[in-house]
């Protein structure tokens, strides 16, 4: 028997209201924690996705759209960059990395990225974290394909599988325009030669093949439209077929960090070219989160308000049980408990409700994060890996407990002031 036993028994006597209040606190704390974790997870996911590219060149409408389409595979870019422009760009500066990409095909709604072998040797999906193969190797021939970890997990395709791509995808809607009609490139089967390890970036949900493979497939479509029925090969490609939708660029740098001195000048130089859109991926991600930051604050404020209202619920629940509690207080006083001890017993009770609620809130948060991750994956194809931030968990748990303790002050004062004589038996 200890003071804690008295507190626990007191809570157990009112188990229904105690349970409801703890559930309220848990939901509020869990919601706040989930919002904080998702916010940092989203930012992290987007920051990871930009990898080691300093610049992204495309013909999308804006730098932000360019990054969302070119690096996060939100939609296939609309306007292509032709071979001549690609050559000009390549020759304009001694780039440390020059990796063209063509996005437009899909496999079972996973985007297919046509690119060069440098994509696996020079581009890093996450800064300072080069690609790693779980199985197999990078493509070195046409009609070979490397698949991301999420694609491998969901399709269960082993190395050596043969697949065909679809031109367009369910994600191919552009603005308010009509959805692109998917067309299956049945003539060209690709062989899976490599499976990537997870990167925690959108690349995990993509497939990668050579540019020439992609060009050949689309040249075949063009031939069919022109009434020429033959199986197109690399030799049949014309200049109009050799197009890309983006170029990932990296400047040479001898200093540590990811912002070489020449970056600003090259960015300005490329921006003066009105035929292309040039983006600083890291800046665009920050801009995106700057836009949603005010919404974040609103969500956090709403969750915090819910937490405060749950503290009010603790106080109301304790006030509602005051009649019953007064008798218990009077009995304890008769047994020798001081007013101060009674005050602390009641305060401990509300604090304990807050503490248990906060702990349950962490569990609620874990479940909410799992649900949110699954929903983001299935509804938007965005890979977020939310992790419960231990520091945030401690801060929210402590805040919840302190709020609960504050909520317990008024009932504790009332208990402190309880008249023993009046609450045991009427004077007589």
């Amino acid at each position, binding site marked *: *028997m200890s003071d804690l036993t*008295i507190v626990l028994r007191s809570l*157990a006597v009112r188990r229904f209201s105690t349970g409801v209040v703890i559930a309220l606190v848990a939901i509020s704390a869990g919601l706040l924690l989930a919002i904080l974790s998702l916010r940092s997870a989203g930012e992290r996911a987007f920051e990871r996705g930009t990898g080691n590219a300093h610049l992204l060149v495309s013909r999308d409408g804006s730098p932000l759209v360019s990054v969302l389409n070119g690096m996060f595979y939100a939609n296939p870019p609309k306007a292509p960059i032709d071979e001549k422009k690609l050559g000009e760009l390549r020759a304009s500066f001694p780039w440390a990395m020059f990796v063209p990409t063509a996005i437009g095909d899909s496999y079972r709604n996973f985007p297919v990225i046509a690119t060069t072998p440098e994509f696996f040797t020079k581009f890093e999906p996450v800064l300072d974290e080069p690609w790693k193969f779980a199985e197999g190797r990078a493509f070195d021939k046409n009609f070979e394909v490397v698949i991301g970890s999420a694609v491998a997990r969901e399709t269960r395709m082993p190395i050596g599988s043969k697949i065909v791509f679809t031109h367009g995808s369910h994600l191919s809607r552009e603005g308010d325009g009509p959805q692109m009609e998917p067309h299956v490139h049945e003539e060209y089967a690709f062989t899976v030669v490599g499976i990537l390890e997870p990167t925690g970036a959108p690349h995990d949900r993509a497939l990668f093949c050579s540019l020439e493979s992609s060009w050949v497939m689309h040249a075949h479509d063009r031939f069919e439209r022109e009434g020429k029925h033959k199986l197109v090969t690399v030799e049949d490609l014309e200049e109009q077929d050799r197009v890309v939708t983006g170029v990932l660029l990296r400047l040479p740098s001898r200093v540590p960090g990811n912002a070489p001195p020449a970056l600003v000048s090259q960015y300005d130089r490329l921006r003066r070219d009105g035929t292309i859109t040039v983006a600083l991926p890291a800046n665009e991600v920050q801009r995106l989160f700057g836009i949603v930051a005010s919404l974040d604050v609103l969500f956090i404020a709403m969750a915090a308000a819910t937490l405060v209202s749950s503290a009010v619920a603790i106080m109301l629940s304790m006030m509602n049980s005051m009649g019953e509690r007064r008798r218990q207080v009077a*009995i304890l006083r008769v047994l*020798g408990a001081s007013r101060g001890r009674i005050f602390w017993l009641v305060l401990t009770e509300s604090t304990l409700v807050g503490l248990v609620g906060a702990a349950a809130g962490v569990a609620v948060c874990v479940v909410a994060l799992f649900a949110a991750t699954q929903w983001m994956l299935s509804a938007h194809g965005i890979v977020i890996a939310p992790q419960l931030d231990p520091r945030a968990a401690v801060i929210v748990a402590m805040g919840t407990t302190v709020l609960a303790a504050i909520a317990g002050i008024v009932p504790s004062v009332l208990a402190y002031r309880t008249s023993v*004589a009046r609450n*045991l038996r009427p*004077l*007589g």
Partner: protein
Amino acid sequence: MHSRVRSIPALQIERLRFAYRAPDRATFELALDSLVLGYEEEMLLVGRSGCGKSTLLQLIAGLLEPASGAIRIGGTDITTLRGATRDRFRGHHVGMVFQTFNLLQGFSARENVLAALLMSDVAKGEWQSRAEMLLRSLGIEQLDARAEELSVGQQQRVAIARALACRPTLVLADEPTASLDPENAVNAVRVLRDACREQGAALLVVSHDPGLESHFARIERLSEVKAQSPSEGAVR
């Protein structure tokens, strides 16, 4: 049984005055010039309903503040003690039994007794054995049954065990038989008297039940209460 200083009475009241206002705004004064109760002595205090019997017990327990006078329990004037010191003193030296038993709801029989020991100066190592010994000696075998699951008679005995848990100098019983039928009332008084005698505690029972008078050798009548209606002004 622990040693008592037998030359000092368990309870000694001198020139006690207490005034209070009833709900109908009439004011009452309780006056008791002298009352002495020795260790292991039993006394029944009778009086008509509303004469201030329960109020006197609350004054003795230090739950109400007298206007004047002294209430000495084992030689210590409880009226001179303040705050937590008085509460601790009550916990250590005074046991109380009520008409409605006032057991802690949700607590088992054992925990009700342990709650009293928690406030006492009895060594923690003795708590469990003392609680079990007291409850078993009073015929309670369902030690872990919740208070509300026990019969009325069992609840009364748990209340008695709790009152005696801290080896009190004095046990105050406020209408202890009012909730019981005549047969159980006689049993309850016998159990209460036997338990107090065994623990060496003085027993002061207040009741308006004339049926109890045959069980006590010493009976006092409380008739010093004077009442004034609101129109008659304040008490003297």
